[in-house]
């Protein structure tokens, strides 16, 4: 048991994510929703650059598709206008459908890639579409571990 706690402390030192890391929006292509693909230094030891870039690029593709102004958006817009937008009370918009796909994608990425590395990716919609945030899940385990250790010393287990 003492060894386990010692290892946890080692992890605490090596965990370079003290707080959350926020990936900001990339406004170079005007106001469409796009996130910066620049790899942040804080994630250097936690995840491979290629995996990170792939995740952000896929998210950007999804948002780009949702905000595309083309045949489908015209059709949706004109049809909705003709019904005085009452149709939106019963129908899901294209953007909403893509948002659902995005949240499923993020869940899948968390399960396959980020959780095994002790990271948690949050859906940008929960942050007003401003940032993609990476949280350090190991902090939770570390704080639980530290609390258990303290309890053990108190009760002399």
């Amino acid at each position, binding site marked *: 048991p003492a060894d386990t706690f010692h290892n946890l402390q080692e992890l605490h030192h090596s965990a370079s994510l003290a*707080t*959350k*890391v926020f990936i900001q929006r990339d406004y170079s292509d005007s*106001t469409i929703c796009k996130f910066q693909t620049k790899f942040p230094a804080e994630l250097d030891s936690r995840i491979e650059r290629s995996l990170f870039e792939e995740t952000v690029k896929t998210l950007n593709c999804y948002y780009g598709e949702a905000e595309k102004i083309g045949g489908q958006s015209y059709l949706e*817009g004109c049809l909705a206008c003709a019904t*005085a937008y009452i149709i939106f009370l019963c129908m899901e918009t294209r953007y909403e459908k893509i948002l659902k796909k995005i949240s499923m994608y993020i869940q899948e990425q968390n399960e396959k890639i980020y959780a095994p590395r002790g990271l948690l990716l949050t859906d940008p*919609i929960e*942050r007003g579409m401003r940032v993609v945030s990476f949280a350090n899940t190991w902090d939770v385990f570390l704080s639980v571990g530290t609390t258990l250790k303290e309890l053990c010393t108190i009760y002399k287990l």
Partner: protein
Amino acid sequence: MSAVMITRKVTRKWEKLPGKNTFCCDGRVMMARQKGVFYLTLFLIIGTCSLFFAFECPYLAVHLSPAIPVFAVLLFVFVMAMLLRTSFSDPGVLPRALPEEANFIEMEIEAANGNVLAGQRPPPRIKNVQINNQIVKLKYCYTCKIFRPPRASHCSICDNCVDRFDHHCPWVGNCVGKRNYRYFYLFTLSLSLLTIYIFAFDIVHVVLRSVDSGFVNTIKETPGTYPFIRVLVCFFTLWSVVGLTGFHTYLISLNQTTNEDIKGSWSGKNRVQNPYSHKNIIENCCEVLCGPTYPSVLDRRGVMLEDSTSPNPSDASTHKSSNPVSQTTVRQHFL
């Protein structure tokens, strides 16, 4: 032993949102606080149209065509739908930064500004981004603790940052921003058409009656002075609403917001040009009017995760669901 069923009301996120908005229908409706002028708008539109339907339409339907009141009804319904959609929807409010995000941004700012000598004013918090080969300055919002995205602005009346902020309209009782601008424009456009329609057919009605029974008799027959009040209302509404529609048509063709126009952001001095414009009127109109319908990022009806303190510590055994968030009833068994 008695089983008592207590219904605990679920707290939804809209109840805890900062900002000066009022919410109705359990978070489905979102408006500004001052709604007096909005009620006036409703009164004027419904009042004028009711008088038109009650007094002019029967005569016109018989003497000219029944299509006239039918079209008026359709136009009226469209105007009301657009007005309610503009007034009740989220204009594109940006939620405030949570503490972690705010701290992260603060750290970035401090890193960028370096050491500030004591007594010296810290430099203004501005971020420069390049959009379509144009440098755009993003300002920091001290209330919301975020760098405002391009075209966003903070509305002091509603105390929110709104994306693609156009203006705060007291007539609709809400801000006009990214999410409801097209409904606002269609409202002004359809209201202009409705006003012109009623105005025109008022005149037609008076002319037809005068042809039938003479002008003086027409004035005597039609009850009170109501047609003249209505003509007056229509006349003033016409000039203001049609003028406003024209102004917004101009803004849309240039892909500008009222806010940018007032501030003169893209007026052309210092070679500053609008980086958001597609330089093509049709493309600009299509983007604003036929673009995607942006979702609300506020999640007004989401359920708040309660860090619950036990409501009744005296009961020996309580049955609580494993997920207190979704549970709306708490059944307590008293031993």
